[in-house]
């Protein structure tokens, strides 16, 4: 699980161009959207592509994405259950 969380954090930083961040800057339970990392709707759509490309998981739409992208931990749990 820890390995997956670290991998996810690296992928999020790279995919979303969070150039000034390192994996240790993102807390496992920190909200990715809203006040936490402050990601926006385009970032959510990129994460949907990431889920499909790297983990073979197809999400229906952006609103399903918003639930799954609540935090890195929620994402990792979802991947573990659905890949």
């Amino acid at each position: 699980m820890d390995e997956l969380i670290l991998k996810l954090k690296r992928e999020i930083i790279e995919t979303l161009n969070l150039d000034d961040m390192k994996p240790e800057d993102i807390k496992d339970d920190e909200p990715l959207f809203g006040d936490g990392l402050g990601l926006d709707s385009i970032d959510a759509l990129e994460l949907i592509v990431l889920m499909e490309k790297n983990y073979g998981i197809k999400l229906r739409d952006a609103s399903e994405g918003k639930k799954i992208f609540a935090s890195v931990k929620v994402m990792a749990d979802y991947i573990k259950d659905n890949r």
Partner: protein
Amino acid sequence: MINILSDSLITPLGFCSEENYQNVKLGKTGIKTYSGILGVDKQVSCSKIDDILLDSEFEKQINQNSVKYTRLEKAALLSVKQAVDKSEIDVTSCRTAFFFSSTKGNVELLEKNSFEEDRLYLWHTAKMITDFFKNPNIPIVVSNACISGICSIISASRAIESGRFDNAVIVGADLLSKFTISGFSCLKALSPEPCKPFDKDRKGLNLGEAAATMILSRGDVNSKYTSFLAGSIRNDANHISGPSRTAEGAYNALTDILTGFDTEQIAFVSTHGTATFFNDEMESIAIDRMKLNNKPINAFKGYYGHTLGAAGILEAVIASHSINDNTVLKTRGFENLGVSREINPTRENLVTDKPYFVKLISGFGGTNAAAIFKKGE
């Protein structure tokens, strides 16, 4: 004052303006549903010009071998030729400006290997047009997302009013491509079915393709021609792809053109109405803030889909034909209001004797524009 001397539309609904207008008035649509199209493997509803018809009309009217030209170039040249032939302006004069409005131009050439790179540039397509018509000026190329068409009209009218030109030929063109379909699809902006502007069941936009031309000239407001009175371009300063939640740009653009204007005289507002959740909601807020809640509004995306760089010109031409026919066209696809403000999209064609219409339009990059036109005397 600026008059529209002539116009021409090349679309799935016809190869001239009159044919287009009659088909729209009859409620026909160019939108079809495909299980896959142009290399995109999913259900897509869009509006596509027939290739065989395009080539045969091109060879007939332009008298050139269609093989040498891209689809975009063919549609644009055909549209400009028709509009020019209908007007009496001298296109070879240095007093005639050419404007080209497009978001992606020949973008489908990115998939092909056998072409010269210059063909991808919008200025190259524009130059091909001015060279064809032997116009000596550097063409003015507007690439301002989906509002490009209205921006070209505004920019051209300013250029004429400055005294630098007497006439302006404005052509807007964008075609369907794997590029744009894939792009809008990954933004989850496309509806798999024909679009439903302002409707509670709207699922997104349909893409379309068109070439649309307008010829503008210095004239007067009591002319037999439709007049362009004023326009404004305003940025939301909010987000690069989502519209302002308070419709700042659209509201400011409308305020700019309507302050001191008797809005009673406006027959309708022709909106952008792409049928995405956010765009239609934003426009309803702009209309509400302007207190135009009871004013008939319509959208033409249900007939043509979203034609990007051609949209502003195409839709203004259709609106212009309709007001000169004393008609407010219905909003194809609209049934039940699904926005937060009480506004009045048309469910059927209406008769009007009011002389003005407003065109409202928005695009990526936070762009918005509004323009007001008057029917011919």
